[in-house]
């Protein structure tokens, strides 16, 4: 993959639904039949993607009997508080601890990983040094490596270092993000004008000062994007905490819920309530920061 062709995507996207320079000529607009079929497909896809989440909300308010007997996609007796009590009982009061652990691991890995990725990306994009091609090649190779396969030897390594069953066993591996560096290179190339750096050098600013006061500010939006990718990848990782962490107090929410599900017949509504509460922080991040997702995916898609 090439990292060079950069500026073609950066045109402001034409707005939909208004005639303007971006609007297509009528001849390639959809015909009425095609439009109807298209809308049907899109609405069908919407139901496929959203109904399970809606069911999750409904199921989290029901007890086992209502789950089995009442219409699945609508509410019955509102049993949310019993389910909440049951969730706390099954998790021995640790549920919110697990959510807090997930926030902590993902947050620390995200901040640390983003800073390192942006530094590396800036160093690669704006400087020449011997061996640069080799380093870039190795990092991009890491992008294509099946990371789950690394988890087994990673466990052996961390076990030898005495780091298993600590929060570092999750945070350190999660902070190393080749995709973050890839985004860092792309964004540093497009968003940091070399003139500004040179002007600051002429004014006598040190390289560290240039980076921390000028470059980081210019790369602000890029850093939000990289942070999001690392945060979500860490939150969603299951195999890594499954191997690395055994104390109940150290579990992230995914691992804790898995343990709850593999108990003998737990309250299903309580499990679903736990699942729902375990994804709320991520859903909030998605809704509030979705434009940053798109800029990251666009960089990946076009450079790929």
């Amino acid at each position, binding site marked *: 993959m090439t990292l060079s062709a950069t*500026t073609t995507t*950066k*045109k402001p996207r034409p707005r*939909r639904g208004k005639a303007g320079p971006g609007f*297509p000529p009528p*001849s*390639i607009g*959809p015909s009425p039949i095609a439009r109807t079929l298209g809308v049907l*497909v899109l609405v069908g*896809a919407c139901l496929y993607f959203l109904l*399970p*989440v809606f*069911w999750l909300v409904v*199921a989290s308010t029901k007890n086992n009997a209502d*789950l*089995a007997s009442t219409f*699945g996609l609508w509410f019955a007796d509102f049993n949310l508080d019993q389910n909440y009590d049951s969730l706390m009982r099954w998790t021995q009061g640790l549920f919110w601890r697990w959510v807090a652990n997930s926030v902590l691991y993902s947050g620390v890995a995200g901040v640390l990983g983003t800073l*390192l990725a942006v*530094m*590396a990306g800036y*160093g*690669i994009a*704006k400087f*020449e*040094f011997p061996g640069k091609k080799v380093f870039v090649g*190795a990092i991009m190779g*890491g992008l*294509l*490596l*099946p990371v*789950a*396969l*690394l988890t*087994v*030897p990673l*466990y052996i*390594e961390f076990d030898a270092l005495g780091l298993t069953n600590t929060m570092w066993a999750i945070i350190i591996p999660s902070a*190393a993000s*080749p995709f973050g560096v890839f985004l860092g290179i792309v964004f540093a190339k497009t968003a940091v*004008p070399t003139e500004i750096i*040179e002007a600051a050098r002429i004014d006598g600013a040190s390289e560290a000062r240039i*980076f921390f006061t000028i470059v980081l500010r*210019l790369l*602000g*939006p890029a850093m939000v994007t990289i942070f999001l990718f690392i945060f*979500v990848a860490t939150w969603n990782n299951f*195999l890594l905490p499954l*191997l690395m962490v055994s104390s109940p107090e150290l579990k992230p929410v*995914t691992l804790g*819920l*898995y343990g709850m599900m593999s108990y003998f017949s737990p309250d299903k509504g309580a499990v*679903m309530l736990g699942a729902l509460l375990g994804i709320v922080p*991520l859903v909030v*991040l*998605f*809704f509030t920061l979705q434009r940053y997702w*798109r*800029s990251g995916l666009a960089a*990946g898609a076009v450079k*790929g």
Partner: protein
Amino acid sequence: MPLTLEAKNKSPRRSVRSGRKGLTGFLFLLPFLVLFVVVFLIPIIVSIRSALFAQVASGGGLYGGGELVDQFVGLDNLVAAATNGAFWKGMGRVALFGLVQIPLMIGSGLFLALLLDSFIVRRVAFFRLAFFLPYAVPGVIAAMMWAYLYTPQLSPFLEYLPDGTNFMAPNVIILSMANMTTWTFTGYNMLIFLAALQAIPRELYEAAAMDGATGFQVATRIKIPLMRGAALLAILLSIIGTVQLFNEPVIMQSVNQWMGNDYTPMMLAYNSLMGQVTPSGSGPASAISLLMAIIAGALAAIYAFAQRQKGE
């Protein structure tokens, strides 16, 4: 996007070349490099090394009775993994999973992206977000949710399906798991394709329309060929993701014990390390991981090569 503003002032790229500045660039890279060595390089070396050793109890001698010591066994672990029937059965399941799931997911992602890019609906942002939402659900939690959705007493839709429909039946369960993965990742891939579509200059469409092209022709002759790079990368990453399939089968196994501890190669590797299947220990587990990495790499290389050949 705030990024667009700065991009416009971009001048022809000029890098600074002097000895001191060169060292500066390396120093910026160094912290990540250290982490990279710890998290990527050392584990690769560790897995090769530990695949070459087996842990055996040293009978007496210097180390005393039951203590475990590493004994060099050469390629024995790798040969054992490569001749393990359970490993290849798992690989077969994973291959079947990938053959169904990857085309389905990439195809629908592509199709949905094309639909959203063809001026059929006005509220593109709503659909985009709705399709992307499942990606916010961690794979394990999605698997738990679908496992309940497949369970006869719990499922809200099973009663409307023909009698005897069983999502957990041995020959159906792979498709049920393929559906979980498809649900989670289709929207993510669709966003990648949508981004690639929006990078296509709109003038191309006007030129095509002037030549009398229909919307369908624009999609098949211009849009799809121009998305090849993005699709190739998405398929490659999906192949790599499928080889290490773990979350979905582990969750399904917790409600369907018959699936066993070795349903996929990654489960086999994990349970080898945990001592729940024989041969167990870090040696066999590393050997399985290595073998899977080799297979994944070979598959990805073959696919990328075949695509390049076709493109020329």
